[in-house]
């Protein structure tokens, strides 16, 4: 039963939309266009800004470090997001079949990292990765292995930072997955069971297709969030060793803090926006190649 929208409904609808529209305008749309304008200037707070055209963009795009940082961000997201999604998916399937009381306890426990700030998590993991007294090297010691310079070796630094990122994002991802699972009607599984479908067949043909929108959402938000990640590397490695863990936002922050003129960091931010937008678009494109299924 669908009602045709009438004029009568428009008033309240606009009223309800107004707060978010106003807030978005003030905090997102206006600053965005202002940033766009400023990015064409050599901008300082004490002197007349000088128009420099696309020079800021030229400087950022020809800076190897910026391109490297985007690549670092991508690598980081590719480490974190799939690991997080797979773990969360498995975990959600386990929790779904637990007794209500026990699952409540489990859900609360895994949600705890989500409410811990990235800074706190970084500090905790800095202790874990400490060279002489850290938990990680202590455990290596059990097997008679030499201590490892987790955060100072080119090969291990980025994965070492990815671990707390997974830990931080896991809880929320698992809960969203779980609610997606609960949304799938039991009758589908019962019908499939009657047809003789096994566990794997059910997962491949029912669970995963019906979770498409949930996974799509988690992929897009996950990728944008992880590529934008910067507290972890700021606190844990300060971008090092060399520039292995300089994520795009850390690059921008460093320029914002150090540069005399701020045009460069704004241009870099806008370019990062383009990068994030294109990645999201690609994900939408790939996952939407078939018609979206509504559960």
């Amino acid at each position, binding site marked *: 039963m669908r009602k045709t929208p009438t004029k009568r409904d428009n008033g309240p609808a606009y009223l309800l939309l107004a707060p978010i529209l106003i807030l*978005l305008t003030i*905090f*997102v749309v206006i*600053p*965005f266009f202002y940033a766009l304008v400023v990015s064409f200037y050599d901008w*300082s*707070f*004490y*002197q007349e800004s000088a128009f420099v055209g696309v020079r800021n963009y030229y*400087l950022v795009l*020809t800076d190897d470090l910026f391109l490297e940082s985007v690549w670092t961000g991508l690598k980081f997201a590719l480490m974190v997001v799939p690991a997080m999604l797979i773990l969360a998916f498995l975990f959600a399937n386990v929790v779904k079949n637990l007794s209500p009381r026990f699952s409540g306890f489990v859900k609360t426990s895994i949600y705890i990292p989500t409410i811990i*700030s*990235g*800074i706190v998590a*970084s*500090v905790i993991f*800095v202790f874990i*990765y400490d*060279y*002489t007294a850290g938990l990680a090297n202590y455990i290596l010691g059990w097997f008679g292995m030499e*201590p*490892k*310079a*987790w*955060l*100072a*070796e080119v090969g291990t630094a980025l994965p070492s930072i990815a671990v707390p990122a997974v830990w931080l994002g896991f809880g929320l991802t698992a809960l969203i997955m779980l609610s997606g699972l609960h949304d799938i009607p039991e009758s589908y599984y019962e019908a499939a069971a009657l047809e003789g479908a096994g566990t794997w067949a059910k997962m491949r043909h029912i669970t995963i297709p019906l979770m498409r929108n949930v996974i799509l959402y988690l992929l*897009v*938000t996950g990728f*944008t*969030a992880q590529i*934008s990640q*910067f*507290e972890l590397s*700021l*606190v844990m*490695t*300060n*971008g*090092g*060793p*060399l520039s292995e863990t300089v994520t795009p936002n850390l690059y921008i922050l*460093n320029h*914002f*803090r*150090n*540069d*005399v003129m701020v045009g460069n960091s704004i241009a870099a*931010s806008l370019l*990062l*926006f383009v990068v*994030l*937008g294109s990645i*999201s*678009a690609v994900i*939408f*494109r790939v996952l*939407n190649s078939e*018609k*979206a299924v509504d559960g």
Partner: protein
Amino acid sequence: MHAKKGKKLQSLTAMSSALLTLSLAVTACGGSNGSGEASPSASASSSAAASPSASASASPSASASASESAAPAEKVKIDFWTQKFEDTTDAWFKKYVDAYNKSQSNVEIKLTIVPGDAWDQKMKAAQAAGKAPEIRTISYGNIANAAKTGQILPLDDLMAPAVFDDLYDNVKEFVNVGGKYYAYPKLVEPSSVMFYRKDLFEAAGLDPEKPPTTWAELLEDAKALTKKGVFGLSIAQNAPDLGWSSWGLQYNAAGHLALTDDWSKADINNDGYKALYKFYQDAYQSGAMPKQQLAPYADIKGFGEGKVAIQICGSWAIGQLRNSYKNLIDKVGIAPMASIDGDQTKPTATLGGWTLAVDGKAGHPQQAADFISYLLAGDPQIMIDFFKSAQFSKFSPRKSVDEAMKTDPDASKDTWRALIAEKIIPYAKAEPLYPWDVALAVSTGIESAMKGTSVDKAIAKAEKDVNDFIAKNKLAGTNPRA
């Protein structure tokens, strides 16, 4: 029909994705700014330098307003921001701001203490909003650029000329840009001093009264001192720390810093810089250094906890040792950092430190400068009080203060103070004014040499990076002191 719907859906999703990423990008860029680490800029590195404990203890509660007394309406109110330093420094600022506010009824100074890692963001935001404090702390390395861009005012007409004559000649240069004084210095701190454990020297069969004086000896001793659980040597080992802490050694090995005087090109492809890169490479690869730093360069924690036998750190570490690692003090020796060839009159350190300056848009420049005159350039006892509370880990830029300190019983019997004041500071150099990117390119080269790149390759890469930066940013001929 199907295709049409699909297209509509696509544009809708594209739009919502754009909005989503937009909001994410915006929130991510403007979002949290807290961190535990000191920032890697020349300025902020000195902030870490000035306060190794500050970075760890930075918290919102650190910002505090000191003035409580409600002032009559006609009083001029002047905002004064300082970075968060050691607690003793904060207390010293509060004490004398209060004293100044009580001593007269025209001006009220409002002190705000800003954590070092929030400083840049907070200051930039305030500058953008036109609400920057009239008086602020600024490190030597940032003065020239701030003066050039009009962020701070020349003080020549606002302060008595005599107060500048009281400064040591090398420090006078630090605050002078284009013939004008843009800030008044509070303190100087050499960036590298050698701290070593006399007891471990003895245990390893070395003479505790003869610390190493050449780089070769330093590496040799470091190897001899390395035992299970104790590393022989700790020195900066990542690019952001190396960026500023190696300046003294760059002077030591090459006699100059990374750029030619007119800033037209890199000046590092020479024997001096090669020797420097080699020194760091050998130190790291000898196994005498921890593979991952135990604490940032500015923090002497590893040494204090007994895990390091020789630590190179700034003079500020004296304060940290005396406050946090009291039982170790008897076993600690202190000496100038080893020199490339043993000549201890060559610079091994740069002098970092802090000054006060008046904002370029200040509404009451005269009153602001008067306060600076009172606090930093007036009664020597005020400054002596400061150096005492800092456990003599910082040093005076003023001749009259040092003169007065000679008669002070605590100051005159402090041998560490004397050693640094007599054997390190006179040979120390000013921090460079060139952009941090240049320093970072050089130090990234050092780090890559430590991590296994050959010295020649690392230098070639750093040289190319620096020259690229110069070309792109049109740096040639912009040295404000040339």
